[in-house]
């Protein structure tokens, strides 16, 4: 089955094996570089009925009148994984999460948890728990009663020991009798996690759990959540708009855009091999250059651009390329080396190179970020680590950008080249 590529927004299928037509050699190559061997094996041989997946969505969709919040979605999350749904606000990720939790009735499709169909079950009968955005702690109950809430509702009488242990796990033992509003944001967040985890759900759903925390605390809680997940071994599904957060914590990230999953895979895999302009721009920053295929030889595509020739490994091109076809050649800013025009002779042969002029530079400590105008496009970004700073690289200087052709990736030129660039600020 071929995923249609002509519609903007629809995506080449990244999951290996499930899309035989879609450049099958691309993903395993990248995946083997990033994921450990067992992971790759299971990914390469998707057998849906081997061990029951923690969550299996079958054509799950949600429409509000004529607006489609989530396009029918098939998704399998294996037991024990840390799965992230990443996307800008309004992309349907939270709706998907709420449909899994049973808080939002789907308009199509089914939800299976641990092999059991729960589509018709209300939220309170599903073995999932949620850490809500802004936590939704009960303001009229103290911390102890908040954490004990789920146990009590299931008729468990002696909750004291379990709640005590859970509060210790999240290091809140001494605050058991406080009310939620007397706690700091980070503490409230941990109560919300404890309140959900104590029920030992099959899946823990986290809806932007760190959104309300400041940067430093967020970093700390990312590690904390990762630790807890490893400790308890429960499947986590984590919804976030923060790409850094998703990449730090999750072992699989699904990037959502306009109600669809654009691409899914291990974080490094997504970053190195974006399959669409949205993913390329939303995850980190990409320089995308409009190009035309001049020739194909020995697994390498030779491209012509407004600024000269470039080469691209055919395996890293997300679209089947024929001579004369248009593609977007992409490269990440940190892969590029910046040389002054005077040093052009010293650049080794066989590298992709583009000439230009520095428009702007900003020093940010570990690196300097340059914006370079060139014939292939305005505002190419280059991140140069501050090892030996070349004093000649100032705005106005003529420069050559060069990089290993292996680091170039190819995308379908029919897409919006700017998709995903401003979403991050909007979210």
């Amino acid at each position, binding site marked *: 089955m071929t995923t249609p590529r002509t519609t903007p927004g629809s995506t080449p299928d990244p999951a290996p094996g499930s899309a035989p037509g879609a450049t099958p050699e691309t993903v395993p190559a990248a995946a083997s570089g990033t994921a450990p061997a067992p992971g790759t094996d299971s990914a390469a041989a998707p057998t849906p009925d081997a061990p029951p997946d923690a969550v299996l969505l079958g054509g799950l969709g949600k429409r509000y009148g004529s607006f489609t919040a989530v396009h029918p979605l098939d998704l399998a999350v294996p037991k024990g994984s840390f799965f992230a749904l990443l996307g800008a606000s309004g992309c349907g990720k939270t709706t998907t999460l709420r449909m899994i*939790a049973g808080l939002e009735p789907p308009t199509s499709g089914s939800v299976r948890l641990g092999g059991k169909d729960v589509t018709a079950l209300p939220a*309170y009968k599903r073995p999932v728990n*949620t850490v809500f955005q*802004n936590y939704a702690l*009960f303001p009229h109950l103290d911390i102890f009663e908040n954490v004990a809430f789920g146990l009590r*509702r299931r008729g468990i009488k002696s909750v004291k020991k379990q709640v005590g242990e859970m509060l210790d796990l999240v290091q809140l033992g001494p605050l058991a009798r406080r009310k939620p509003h007397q706690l700091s944001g980070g503490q409230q967040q941990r109560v919300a996690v404890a309140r959900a985890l104590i*029920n030992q759900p099959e899946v823990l759903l986290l809806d932007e759990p760190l959104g309300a925390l400041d940067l430093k605390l967020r970093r700390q809680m990312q590690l904390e959540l990762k630790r807890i997940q490893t400790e308890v071994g429960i499947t986590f599904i984590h919804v976030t708009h923060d790409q850094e957060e998703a990449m730090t914590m999750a072992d699989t990230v699904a990037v959502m855009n306009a109600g669809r999953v654009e691409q899914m895979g291990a974080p490094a895999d997504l970053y190195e091999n974006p399959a669409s302009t949205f993913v390329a721009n939303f995850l980190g920053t990409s320089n995308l250059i409009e190009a035309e295929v001049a020739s194909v030889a020995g697994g390498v595509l030779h491209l012509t651009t407004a600024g000269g020739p470039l080469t691209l490994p055919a395996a890293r091109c997300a679209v089947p390329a024929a001579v004369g076809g248009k593609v977007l050649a992409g490269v990440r800013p940190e892969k590029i080396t910046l040389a002054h025009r005077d040093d052009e002779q010293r650049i080794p042969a066989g590298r992709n190179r583009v000439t230009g002029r520095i428009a702007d530079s900003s020093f940010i400590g570990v690196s300097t970020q340059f914006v370079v105008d060139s014939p292939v496009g305005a505002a190419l970004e280059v991140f140069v680590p501050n090892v030996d700073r070349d004093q000649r690289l100032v705005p106005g200087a003529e420069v050559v950008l060069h990089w290993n052709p292996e680091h170039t990736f190819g995308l379908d030129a029919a897409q919006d080249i700017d998709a995903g660039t401003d979403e991050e600020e909007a979210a």
Partner: protein
Amino acid sequence: MRAVRWIRRNLVVIAGVLTLAYLIVPNLVVLAFSFNKPKGRYNYTWNHFSTDAWRHPCGVPGMCGSLGLSLRIAVYATIGATVLGTMTAFALARYRFRGRAATNMLIFLPMAMPEVVMGASLGTLFLNMRIQFGFWTILIAHIMFCLSFVVTAVKARVMSMDPRLEQAAQDLYASPAQTFLRVTLPLAAPGIAAGALLSFALSFDDYIITSFNAGNSVTFPMYVWGSAQRGTPVQVNVIGTAMFLLAVVLVLAGQLVAGRRRARA
């Protein structure tokens, strides 16, 4: 010069305090004259100090009976209006449905209607339906005009509640009934309490609407009205002062409990 500047800076506060005095002085007069021993029937001028009225609050015929009737009606009207009003408020605050705007309008209208209009209309209806005026007609009228105030108070509270709290309860295995009892109701309680308190005060104090629907029954405000023509007994001041002090004590106690709870936590 400094005094002038002080006055200029605190002009608003001075005006505010004067207004407050305007609000409070009548209560102080009621309090003072509850200790009066009036010469003749009219308790308008100070004669001399006496605690007679406080020692015999029911010493005048009919007054305590009317007080009892008013309290009974206020309790039932509060219960009725609070139950109906809370349900209506939940529907309006939580659901989008056909006729919602019309319902909102229907709730607003009784509050925008002079009491005399409502009282006269309802009285006309009862009269023409040949319904016996008395306890039940008063109760019906009181529930009718208290309802809107309860709806307004509860609706404001429910709308400010985070719907995620109820979702969190469902997510934590609480059935709809448990969610309502354990989460929704405790959270809405301050709004419901405010509505109930307001209902009680409005019902207990109502004269105008009641006068159209009471027939021969005499509520406490009607007793006071009637006695105003003949000369109000001092006991009326005693009841007024007692209600005032009771309210003050209750509020202070509430503040104290809340303060203590805050201090302990």
